[in-house]
C-alpha cells in the first residue's frame, strides 16, 4: 500500500483513498467498527442529545405512565411546533454568529396583527397572515440594515426591537385586550385539531427512508464512476430500513390516538427545507462560511451583507410564523403571546440541539431536537403535581442532565484532538 500518486500506476486506488494513514471501513463489519470508533472518539452528531432525551423519557414515564401515552405525545407534538418554528429561525441567525432577542416579541406581534386584521378588520385570513409574515421580514430587514450599515451589534439592536415591538403589540391590543380567533375557522382548526389521515401519515413516514436510499444510491453510483470511494450499499439499505421502521412505528403509535398533527408536519417540513437550504445550496454554504470566518467569506467574494440580511429576515419571518401558529394553537391573540420564556426557550432549543452561539456550526435539526427536549421536560413535569418552586428547580436540573451527555461526548471529541 505504498503506492505513489502517479497517474500511470497500474491500479490507481480511488481518488480519496490514496492516503495510507487513514483507516477505512469495509462492508457491514467495517461500518459497525467505524461506528464504534466514532463513539469512542466522541464524534457522534446528535446521538448524545437523543440519548439524553431517552433518559428523560424513561424517568418521566416511570414517574407517570401517562407521559408516553399517545394522547400526551400528540399534545407534545402540537406544543413543539409553535416554538420549534421560532427556534428554526434562531438557528439561522446563530449560524451566522449573530443573535435575535426579539423573536418572542415578533411572534407575539404577528399573532396580534393576525388577530386585529382578520377578526377585527375583517380581512381574509390569508391576507392577514401574509401581512404578518411581511412585517416579520421587514423587522429582520431593519436589523440587517442597522447591522450592515452602522455595525450595530445584533444583541443591542434586537434588544431595542424586543422592547419596541412589545410596545407595538400592546398598542395594537391595547383597546381590546386579547382577541379570540373564531373557534371553527380553518386556522384554529389547524392549530388545535387537524391531524393527518392515518394513510397519509404512513406514506409520509415512509418517504425519508426511500428518498434517502434513492439519493444516496445515485450519489454512490456517481462517486464510483468518478473514481471516488462510495458507501457500502448494504449499510445504506440498513440505515434506510432502520429509519423507516422507526418512523412507521412512531406513526402507528400516535395513530392509536389522534395521529400526527398537520402543524407538526408543517414544522418538520420547514426543518427539512431549511436543512436542504443550509447543506445543499450555495446560500447555505455561504451562511456557514460567514458564521465561521466572516473575513474569509468576504475575501472569497461572498456578498456578506446579503447573507446577513437573509439570515435576519428569515429569522424574523419564521418567528412571525411561529407566532401565528401559537395564536392558532391558543385560538387567541393575547397580550401575553411571545412574552415570558418564548425567547429563551427558542434560543435554548437551538443551542441544546447543537447549534453554536458563536456561529459557523449548527443544523436545522437542532431546532427539532432541542424543542423536543424542552417540551418533553415541560410536559413531563406538568404530569407531576409539583409546586412552581419545585418545578423550576427540577426543570433546571433535568435540562442540565439532558445536555451533560452531549457535553461529555463533545468533550471526548476535543480530547481526541477533533474540534
Amino acid at each position, binding site marked *: 500500500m505504498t503506492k505513489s500518486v502517479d497517474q500511470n500506476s497500474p491500479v490507481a486506488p480511488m481518488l480519496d483513498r490514496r492516503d495510507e494513514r487513514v483507516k477505512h471501513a469495509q462492508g457491514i463489519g467495517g461500518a459497525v467498527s467505524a461506528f464504534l470508533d466514532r463513539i469512542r472518539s466522541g464524534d457522534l452528531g446528535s446521538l448524545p442529545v437523543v440519548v439524553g432525551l431517552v433518559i428523560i423519557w424513561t424517568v418521566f414515564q416511570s414517574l*407517570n405512565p*401517562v407521559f408516553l*401515552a399517545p*394522547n*400526551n405525545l400528540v*399534545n407534545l407534538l402540537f*406544543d413543539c411546533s*409553535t*416554538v420549534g418554528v421560532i427556534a428554526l429561525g434562531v438557528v439561522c441567525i446563530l449560524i451566522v454568529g449573530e443573535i435575535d432577542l426579539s423573536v418572542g416579541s415578533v411572534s407575539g406581534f404577528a399573532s396580534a396583527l393576525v388577530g386585529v386584521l382578520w377578526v377585527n378588520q375583517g380581512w381574509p385570513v390569508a391576507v392577514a397572515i401574509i401581512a404578518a409574515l411581511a412585517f416579520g421580514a421587514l423587522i429582520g430587514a431593519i436589523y440587517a440594515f442597522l447591522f450592515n450599515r452602522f455595525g450595530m451589534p445584533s444583541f443591542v439592536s434586537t434588544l431595542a426591537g424586543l422592547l419596541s415591538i412589545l410596545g407595538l403589540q*400592546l398598542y395594537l391590543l391595547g383597546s381590546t*385586550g*386579547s*382577541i*379570540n380567533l373564531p*373557534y371553527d375557522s380553518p386556522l*384554529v382548526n389547524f392549530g*388545535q385539531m387537524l391531524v393527518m389521515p392515518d394513510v397519509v401519515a404512513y406514506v409520509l413516514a415512509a418517504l425519508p427512508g426511500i428518498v434517502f436510499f434513492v439519493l444516496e444510491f445515485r450519489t454512490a453510483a456517481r462517486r464510483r464512476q468518478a473514481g471516488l470511494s462510495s458507501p457500502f450499499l448494504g449499510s445504506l439499505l440498513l440505515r434506510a430500513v432502520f429509519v423507516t421502521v422507526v418512523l412507521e412505528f412512531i406513526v402507528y403509535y400516535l395513530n392509536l390516538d389522534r395521529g400526527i398533527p398537520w402543524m407538526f408536519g408543517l414544522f418538520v417540513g420547514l426543518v427539512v427545507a431549511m436543512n436542504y437550504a443550509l447543506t445543499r445550496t450555495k446560500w447555505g454554504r455561504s451562511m456557514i462560511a460567514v458564521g465561521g470566518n466572516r473575513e474569509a467569506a468576504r475575501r472569497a467574494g461572498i456578498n456578506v451583507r446579503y447573507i446577513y440580511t437573509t439570515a435576519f429576515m428569515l429569522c424574523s419571518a419564521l418567528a412571525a410564523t411561529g407566532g401565528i401558529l*401559537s395564536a392558532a*394553537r*391558543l*385560538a*387567541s391573540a*393575547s*397580550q*401575553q*403571546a411571545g*412574552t*415570558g*420564556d*418564548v425567547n429563551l426557550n427558542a434560543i435554548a432549543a437551538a443551542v441544546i440541539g447543537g447549534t453554536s452561539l458563536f456561529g459557523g456550526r449548527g443544523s436545522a435539526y437542532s431546532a427539532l431536537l432541542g424543542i423536543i427536549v424542552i417540551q418533553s421536560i*415541560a*410536559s413531563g413535569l*406538568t*404530569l407531576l*403535581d409539583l*409546586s*412552581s418552586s419545585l*418545578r423550576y428547580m427540577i426543570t433546571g436540573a433535568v435540562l442540565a442532565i439532558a445536555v451533560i451527555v452531549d457535553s461529555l461526548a463533545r468533550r471526548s471529541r476535543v480530547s481526541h484532538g477533533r474540534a
Partner: protein
Amino acid sequence: QNAKVSNATVAFLMPDQASTRYEEHDYPGFKAEMEKLCPTCKVLYQNADANVSRQQQQFNSAISQGAKVIVIDPVDSAAAASLVKQAQSQGIKVIAYDRPVPDAKADFYVSFDNEAIGKAIADSLVQHLKASNVTAASGTGVLQINGSPTDAAAGLIKKGIHAGLDSSGYPILAEFDTPEWAPPKAQQWASGQITRFGKNILGVVAANDGTAGGAIAAFKAAGVNPVPTVTGNDATIAALQLIIAGDQYNTISKPSEIVAAAAANVAIQFLMGETPKAETTLFNTSSRLFVPAVITAQNLKAEIIDKKINTAEQLCGGRYAEGCKKLGIN
C-alpha cells in the same frame, strides 16, 4: 352522600406567582375541602407562571390524565375560551375560578371580582383622604400604579381603580403599568414622580402589595415623612406588617380558602352529575361571588387575626410588636 364519587380526578389550575396566595391559600383550601368530600379523589395542581401557552399545556395534560372537572384561574381570560370549549366538547366540566371567561360559557364561575377589588381599594383611599380633610387643590392628586401591562388580571384591577378614582374629585397625576409587577420598577417610577410632583402627591393607589411596597420605599428614600396614603392588595404578610407600622394604608384580604372550598363543592357536585345552585349569573354563567375585605389598621385585628388568616406571631415579630400592641394584637 359522597359515596357515589370516588377515584375521580379534578384539576386545579392557577395562573401565576405574582402573589403567594395560590400556593399558600387557594390550593390548600381546595385540597382540604376535596379531601373532606372525596378522600379517594385525586387533585392535580398546576401553576402557569403567567404563561398562556404553559397553561394550555397544563390544561391538556390534565385532560390526558383523565380529569373530569377542571377548575381554572385563567392567565388570559379571553384566551381561555378555547380551552373551555375544548374541554366541554369532551364532556369535561370547567369551573372558572377568580377570573371569568367572558367569551365562552364555563360551567360555573366562582370568584371575587378583580374589578371590584380595584374599585374597593380606590374607594377606600378616597374615603380616607376625604375623612382626613385632604382637599384636592389644583396641581395635587394621586398616583396610580397598575400591574403588568401584559397581565389580564392587572387590566381588570386597573379598570376598577379608574372607576373608583374618576368620580372622586382627586385627579390622577400619573399612572404606570409595572412590567412584570416588579417592585423595583414601581419604586423607580415613584421616585421620579416624587421628583416631579413632590408634596402634591396625596396618595398612591397600587394594584398589589409588592408595588405598594416599592412606592413606600421610594417615599422613604426621598425622605418624605409621613408617607402619603398608599393602598395595596393581596394581604401579604409584608403588607400587613407595613400597615401595622403605619406605612401602608390598606390592602385587600381575599378569603381564598373559602372560595376554594366553594369551588371544591361545585366540583364534587359536577362529579355526582348534579347541577350546582347558582347565586347569580355573570357572563351568562352560573356564578357565586365572594366579597373581598378591605383591610386597614382599624379592622386588621378583626379581619386577619380573628379570622385566623394569619397569626399574631407571623405578623408581630420584632419591630412590629409595638405597632401590634397599639392595634390591640398580642
